[in-house]
């Protein structure tokens, strides 16, 4: 079996990790995932060790995506039932292109083999060698992005809870802003919309990496999603639950008017 495949052909979680296989399944089910390449753990390991053949194979496969790239870890066991590696393994946004890919994969490999990652693995009872798959996608450069729970994570109610901010979703995920907060009911009606305080936004830099920018004053407390976008997000939640099952934690982005699914995983709860 090949260790470098189009994302849509990623089937084996023991090779590619749950993130890659989940996104592959989403593509197979027609969900709006940006196209990409899935790299299996052993090939990431080889590239991180500067194996020339592995580097060439990966570069040839990734080159047609162009750039810039989003390079996301997809560790085996990641987001599994027994452990969530959220925050342990690296995601690198805005990697300029294939020339920078080797270094990016090396960084991601070390993020899964760092002291903090090992400490975490030991704490949750994992004593096996870490294996980190990777998803490489063309970077979506969004106007708006955020997260969505397909069920209310606090009450369990079957309603969509959406948090959104300007620019890349990292502002929401990393807690750098107070995001807009929305609740959308089962039938699509907007139950609640609370403007946040979104004074910064993460944007891509032409030379790679991201920058935290100040948001224009008039946008800081303006709602960043309209009714049509909320309806589209709600429809995406329906599709995700149909494909993956109930209670999903979705990362999404809207770029040039198109809604993209960036990640969809089971809701993990603190203390479990």
């Amino acid at each position, binding site marked *: 079996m090949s260790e470098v495949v189009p994302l849509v052909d990623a089937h084996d979680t023991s090779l590619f990790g749950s993130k890659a296989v989940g996104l592959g399944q989403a593509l197979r089910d027609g969900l709006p995932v940006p196209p990409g390449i899935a790299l299996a753990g052993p090939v990431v390991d080889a590239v991180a060790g*500067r194996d020339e053949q592995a580097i060439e194979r990966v570069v040839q496969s990734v080159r047609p995506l162009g750039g810039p790239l989003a390079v996301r870890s997809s560790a085996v066991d990641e987001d599994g039932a027994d452990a969530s590696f959220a925050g342990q393994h690296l995601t690198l946004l805005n990697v300029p292109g294939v020339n920078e890919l080797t270094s990016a994969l*090396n*960084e991601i490999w*070390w993020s899964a083999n760092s*002291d903090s990652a*090992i400490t975490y693995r*030991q704490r949750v009872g994992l004593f096996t060698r870490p294996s980190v798959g990777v998803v490489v996608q063309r970077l979506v450069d969004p106007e708006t992005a955020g997260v969505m729970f397909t069920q209310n994570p606090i009450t369990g109610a079957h309603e969509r809870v959406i948090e959104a901010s300007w620019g890349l979703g990292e502002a929401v995920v990393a807690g750098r802003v107070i995001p807009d907060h929305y609740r959308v009911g089962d039938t699509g009606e907007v139950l609640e919309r609370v403007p946040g305080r979104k004074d910064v936004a993460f944007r891509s830099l032409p030379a790679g990496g991201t920058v935290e920018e100040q948001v224009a004053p008039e946008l800081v407390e303006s709602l960043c999603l309209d009714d049509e976008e909320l309806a589209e997000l709600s429809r995406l939640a329906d599709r995700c639950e149909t494909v993956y099952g109930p209670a999903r934690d979705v990362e999404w982005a809207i770029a040039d008017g198109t809604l993209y699914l960036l990640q969809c995983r089971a809701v993990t709860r603190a203390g479990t």
Partner: protein
Amino acid sequence: MQSGDEGRDVTAGAPVEVLHRVPLFADLDDEELGRIASVFKERRFPAGETVIQQGSGAAAFFVIDSGEATVTVGEEVRRVLTAGDYFGEMALIDAGTRTATVVASTELVCAGVTFWDFRPIVEENGVIGWKLLQSLIGVYRLELRGEG
């Protein structure tokens, strides 16, 4: 234990040359060290980044290729590490906790090997395992004599 996360001076060079000077590897020959060197991977740290943190779990042993790092134990600065120095070799044996903190004071380029990559080499090669055991006992005897 004589060495650990506080590091020791060695001559800069290829990993095999550096590894020769690590007390833990003192009895290994070039071929055996070459086997270990083959699983090293480059790791870069920007200036200011904490490379290892005293008290945290330990995943890897590092040899510095270029740059400088500062070693502290508690609040006390113990030394500055430069190219050819190494630190963290105890992690290769027990994946225990770090005994010192190392912070990159400039951009730091290291070669590192993890517990997970080192262990199979030892498990597959009894000669290497026996030599490591002898080295450990040697270090232990020095420690007992107060020469460590």
